[in-house]
């Protein structure tokens, strides 16, 4: 409907443009100790961060690519050709007027300032390696909510920042979390004081403009006792012929009774390797909910996780992955139950189009000594063409008695008869397919915030239009 505004404009056709580079700070191509030190120097890192980065680099170099279980396509990433840090050399501005022209125009074309005015509590806009704009509505700031870039976070709020940084996702969690630890830049730091409920979402928008580039944002969100916050991230990049790497680390901490909802809409161009580690920690009675939507990219590997550490903590992952021709969406969820009466819910829907491939990997872990834990897992795959592919690897380790798990999986195919039926009513093949896909994800999308579901529907339509003759 016309009156609805969409939350995150990440239409790839709209996102497929770039301005000439005007970077003042450039770490050059390739990764070595020098690269890492350069980043530390430019960012004026405190010593503990310098050390952290160097440990990250060491771990990254030591760890093999996870090709024994993951896609061999990872070998196509040439770590020597990637540029690890590019920035205009200015600090994040509090007003769009102060943002350099080309960069400001980029975000205007993506509709960010407009959405900020309409319904967001705060926005952070990252351009290549650094946040260029970061602002929070006055009323929200006055409640004591902190919403800044990671660089600013670690400098200005070291006591809270350091306490949790790298604790939910240790450096050595995996090769790409180690890489991020070495070269991280940008991303958000959010702190919500006890009892504060942030009404409107805080949004970050990650934009890649440069070719042969790697974006490594690092986000840390801490919701103090009884507080609530919703964070949304959107990302786009123009389509280049060479691989682009996006490798973020996102850590969420929900203290006693707090609620964090983290919403991602990703619509990457088909040259992007999207290798992201996301994990939340939920203390007693707290809730961490990931809404994760992956469209585009060449290869996405992402398994949002929740560690339920306190009694009655809840974890949830609702995800949609759309794998078009030549794309591989390797996504899933991990639920680690570490206290009694914890509950988790995973609903994953994937759509494979053409030769697209969707893989679901799930992990549900409930150790023997726990009582009254519950997990529900549903994963459904929709295949559009005969050449489309889906695989499911659920790993459920539930020990002990008195814990309940429920697992359902389904694979369905859009049939030629279905498409013909819809065409007979006047819909083009592409419209028919996007309607089927929307029908398939409908019950899940209904649980998403309104603005977000509108955007998602539009993206699915665009994707289907592009995939049919």
């Amino acid at each position: 409907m016309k009156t609805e505004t969409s939350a995150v404009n990440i239409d790839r056709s709209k996102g497929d443009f770039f301005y000439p580079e005007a970077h003042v700070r450039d770490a050059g191509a390739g990764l070595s100790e020098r690269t890492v030190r350069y980043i530390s120097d430019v960012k004026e890192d405190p010593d503990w961060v310098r050390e952290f980065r160097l440990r990250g680099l060491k771990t990254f170099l030591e760890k093999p690519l996870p090709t024994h279980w993951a896609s061999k396509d990872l070998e196509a990433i040439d770590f020597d050709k990637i540029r690890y840090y590019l920035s205009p050399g200015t600090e994040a501005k509090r007003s769009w007027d102060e943002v350099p022209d080309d960069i400001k125009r980029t975000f205007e074309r993506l509709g960010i300032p407009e959405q900020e005015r309409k319904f967001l509590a705060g926005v952070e806009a990252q351009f290549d390696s650094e946040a260029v704009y970061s602002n929070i509505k006055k009323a929200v700031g006055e409640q004591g909510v902190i919403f800044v870039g990671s660089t600013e976070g670690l400098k200005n709020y070291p006591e809270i920042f350091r306490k949790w940084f790298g604790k939910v996702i240790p450096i050595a969690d995996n090769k790409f979390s180690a890489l991020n630890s070495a070269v991280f830049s940008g991303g958000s730091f959010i702190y919500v004081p006890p009892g504060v409920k942030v009404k409107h979402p805080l949004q970050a928008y990650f934009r890649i403009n440069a070719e042969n580039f790697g974006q490594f944002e690092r986000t840390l969100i801490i919701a103090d006792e009884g507080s609530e916050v919703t964070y949304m991230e959107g990302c786009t990049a123009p389509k280049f012929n060479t691989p682009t790497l996006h490798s973020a680390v996102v850590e969420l901490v929900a203290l006693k009774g707090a609620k964090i909802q983290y919403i991602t809409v990703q619509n990457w161009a088909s040259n992007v390797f999207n290798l992201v580690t996301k994990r939340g920690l939920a203390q007693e009675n707290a809730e961490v909910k990931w809404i994760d939507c992956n469209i585009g990219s060449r290869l996405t590997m992402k398994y949002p996780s929740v560690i339920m550490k306190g009694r009655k903590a809840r974890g949830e992952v609702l995800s949609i992955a759309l794998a078009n021709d030549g794309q591989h969406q390797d996504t899933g969820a991990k639920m680690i139950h570490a206290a009694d009466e914890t509950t988790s819910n995973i609903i994953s829907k994937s759509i494979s189009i053409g030769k697209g491939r969707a893989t679901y990997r799930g992990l549900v872990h409930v150790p023997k000594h726990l009582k009254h834990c519950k997990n529900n897992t549903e994963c459904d795959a929709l295949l559009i063409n005969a050449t489309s592919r889906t695989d499911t690897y659920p790993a459920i380790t539930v020990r002990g008695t008195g814990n309940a798990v429920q697992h359902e999986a389904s694979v369905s195919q859009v049939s030629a008869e279905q498409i013909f039926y819809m065409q007979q009513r006047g819909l083009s093949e592409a419209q028919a397919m996007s309607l089927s896909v929307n029908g398939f994800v409908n019950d899940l999308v209904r649980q998403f915030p309104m603005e977000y579901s509108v955007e998602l529907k539009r993206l699915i339509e665009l994707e289907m239009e592009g995939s049919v003759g």
Partner: protein
Amino acid sequence: MKELNIENLRIAVDGQEIVRGLTLRVPRGEVHALMGPNGSGKSTLAKVLAGHPDYHVTAGKVLMDGENLLELEPDERARRGLFMAFQYPSEIPGVTIANFLRAAMQSRLPEGEELEATDYYAKLYEKIELLGMDRSFTSRAVNEGFSGGEKKRTEILQLAMLEPKYAVLDETDSGLDIDALKTVAHGVNSLRGPDLGILLITHYQRLLNYIIPDHVHVMVAGRIVRSGRKELALELEERGYDWARDGAIEPAFR
């Protein structure tokens, strides 16, 4: 000429000829009943009119108001005014009738023009009432878990909403109880008029008591073997298809 004109049509599937030189004209404003034994090719004809990709037209032509129908994609045919009520309608999981019909009607509007939501719902509820259905039905997924009769009613609901120039109704009566048959017939009759031509495929004379046809054709083994007025249906019921076939001008065989 405002008619659906099928001329010497031959249709094959997997190398086997199913429709074997069929000629039939349905002018707008008329209802033509098409009857024939199982497997005689009635549904095949209907699907080919609608543009089903599995069937090959090996000879003949089909013109809709003078326009070559066979050159058009199925959705173009639909948007230009051809409707088919399926003998076995497909299910579309997760897509509500309301959303489906809305998309179908939107597809008929010029680019940039948006369907007026209030008008749309007003019309939808009017037609729902016409067909003796419950409003809540429109928020169910298309044909998903519908009974046979509900599916057929939903086909006619779509016909009523989309207002085509020609409608092919493939055994819309089968699976309907007597009350439902009357309501559906009432629905179809209310749509009759100078702007709509109907090809009504059925096995049963019973339907023709409610939707009175202008012409009746008997199809056997891929051809029309007899044509006549509405009385032909009665005669056919009495005497059977063998009679119809024997009287054919040239013998039809399979």
